[in-house]
């Protein structure tokens, strides 16, 4: 899970829980205050009812004056009033209650008041009930029950409206906050993405170290990574050096052993066997040494100019083969490759050495662009060429197509190994000249 995803999901969770709790609290508070307001209003109605109802001399309940709200007069208006004698001898109802069953229950003591909800006529209502006693002229008291009921529809509608507003505002706030949070995270994590893309460049061998300026926290990390890269690089160099030293110190005794066996002219079968084993050891050392010394993708190397390298090798080879007049033509359409100088030297050295060994008088070295920002380098000669059947054989280390020309038989196989490390390939074919054409693909320098 990415850092951004973690932070985003945590923020989302916190925000949603917080908003829910806030919403619930606000909802409850509003409801309570709305209910309290309702109760206040109904108490007003109740007091009006108390003032409006009289008991006539026959003990019947009558309205002494009009009730304060016209809704009491309209049938089915949602606002109802009722006064009832506790003994049931008389019940007075507002006009709005005419079509309905009377309000029942609530045997309250005088002075007692109860605010409640009541299912009434199949609809929820607030009900404010009050117990009182009417003192007659003769001093007797008649207990009366006063009730005021109001349909909750308006109230519920108000709550609903409030809720709608509340939740839509809260949801928009959550969305807005998340959006802001996302932007903040992107902005905050941008240096990390920068580091990651810089590291990818290092991996691709385009740069050697982290070079950008980063925020303090990440700069420390970048410095550590740079130190690590440097120490890895110097460690690699040490490994290579010590391998070189090891090869040097192993090969000299190997040379001595080989010579001892050769100078011992009474060659028994065991000597031949020993010679063979020595040859194997020699090949193993050569191969492993070359392998270890190969840098492969060289992050440290910028584009490497091919022309001077090829010129040096040609001059060196012309010196060794001074008795053999060789014309070397070079046509470099791509002038640089992206690889380690030592690796390039090994590959080109082996190819050019082979060409000098086998050619009659002409060698051609060409480069041209190939697909995917790579280059194709071919070394051709006018020698006997490599027969189709032997082409696979010469790529196996230790195999020599012909033992008449000196060499340790790991040349082309080695070149192939290095080329493969650079993600390229080696092809043996027939060139424009009569002899072999060895072509390799390598990453091109920009």
């Amino acid at each position, binding site marked *: 899970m990415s850092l951004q995803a973690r932070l985003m999901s945590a923020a989302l969770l916190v925000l949603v829980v917080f908003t829910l709790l806030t919403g619930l609290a606000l909802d409850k508070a509003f409801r309570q205050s709305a209910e309290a307001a309702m109760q206040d209003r109904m108490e007003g109605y109740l007091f009006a009812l108390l003032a409006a109802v009289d008991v006539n001399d026959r003990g019947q309940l009558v309205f002494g004056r009009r009730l304060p709200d016209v809704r009491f007069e309209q049938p089915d208006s949602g606002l109802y009033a009722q006064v009832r004698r506790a003994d049931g001898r008389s019940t007075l109802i507002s006009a709005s209650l005419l079509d309905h069953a009377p309000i029942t229950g609530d045997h309250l003591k005088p002075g007692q008041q109860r605010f409640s909800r009541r299912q009434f006529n199949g609809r929820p209502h607030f009900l404010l009930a009050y117990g009182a006693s009417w003192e007659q002229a003769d001093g007797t008291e008649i207990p009366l029950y006063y009730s005021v009921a109001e349909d909750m529809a308006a109230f519920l509608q108000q709550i609903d409206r409030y809720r709608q507003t509340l939740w839509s505002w809260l949801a928009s706030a959550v969305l807005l906050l998340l959006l802001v949070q996302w932007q903040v995270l992107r902005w905050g994590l941008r240096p990390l993405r920068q580091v990651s893309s810089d590291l990818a460049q290092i991996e691709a061998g385009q740069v050697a170290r982290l070079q950008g300026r980063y925020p303090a926290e990440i700069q420390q990390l970048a410095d550590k990574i740079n130190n690590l890269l440097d120490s890895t690089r110097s460690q690699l160099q040490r490994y290579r050096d010590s391998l*070189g030293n090891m*090869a*040097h*110190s192993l*090969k*000299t*005794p*190997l*040379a*001595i*052993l*080989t*010579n*001892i066996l*050769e*100078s011992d002219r009474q060659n028994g079968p065991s000597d031949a066997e020993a010679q063979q084993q*020595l040859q194997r050891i*020699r090949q193993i050392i*050569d191969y492993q*040494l*070359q392998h270890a*010394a190969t840098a492969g993708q060289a992050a440290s190397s910028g584009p490497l100019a091919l022309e001077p390298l090829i010129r*040096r*090798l040609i*001059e*060196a080879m012309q*010196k*060794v083969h*001074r*008795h053999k007049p060789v014309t070397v033509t070079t046509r470099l359409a791509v002038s640089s490759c992206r690889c380690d*100088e*030592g690796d390039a*030297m*090994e590959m*080109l*050295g*082996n190819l050019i050495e082979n060409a000098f060994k086998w050619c009659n008088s002409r060698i051609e070295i060409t480069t041209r662009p190939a697909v995917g920002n790579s280059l194709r380098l071919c070394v051709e000669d006018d020698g006997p060429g490599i027969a189709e059947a032997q082409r696979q054989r010469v790529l196996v280390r230790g195999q020599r197509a012909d033992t008449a020309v*000196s060499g*340790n038989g790991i040349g082309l196989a080695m070149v192939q190994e290095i080329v493969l490390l650079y993600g390229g390939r080696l092809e043996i074919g027939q060139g424009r000249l009569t002899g072999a054409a060895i072509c390799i693909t390598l990453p091109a320098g920009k």
Partner: protein
Amino acid sequence: MRILVVEDEPALNAQLQNMLRAAGYAVDAVGDGHEARYMGEENPFDLAVVDIGLPGLSGVEVIRAWRDRQRLFPVLILTARGRWQEKVEGLEAGADDYMVKPFHEEELLARVRALLRRASGQVKNEIRSGPLRVDTSAQRVTVEGQELELTAYEYRVLEYLLMHPGKVISKTELTEHIYDQDFDRDSNVIEVFIGRLRRKIDADNRLRPIETLRGRGYRWALEPST
């Protein structure tokens, strides 16, 4: 032909000496760079075999020093690492050929012979002069098809003269090229070798292959033949 062996590993040094001596060369050997540089500057060698990885002064530096002082004898470098960087550096410093350790005796001798031939302008293994045929790899000498029995030193004198036809070669030069440093040099011995060679090559005194130039030295007088 006198060869300098520069190799710091004593056993390999001894083997190189033995191989080259057995092949008929006069051999001097040293084990470190500074000594090698001195030896090469002070003595007229015909060839040097130099290990690149020397203690003190490296092989490349030794060769460079020789070339700076106009010591132009061919140099064969030995490298253990076999890295191209090393080979090219050696060749650029002035070496003429390279070999990667370990190597076979035959290959070493073939390279040495090739370099010596090249230095004297010869192309083939066989030198032909008048009725003489000298196979430098087998060290066989024939006159009109008749094989001559020569001692190692007689052969060296003959080969040196043949490699420099028409040139006047002093007794000192001959001594320096057929003996190594440790040998007790007596230039009178050269006269003895020359005398024996004349008798063996030219028993009836008809060819007169070696001229004596009094007070100056000897000269190979026969024309190269095909």
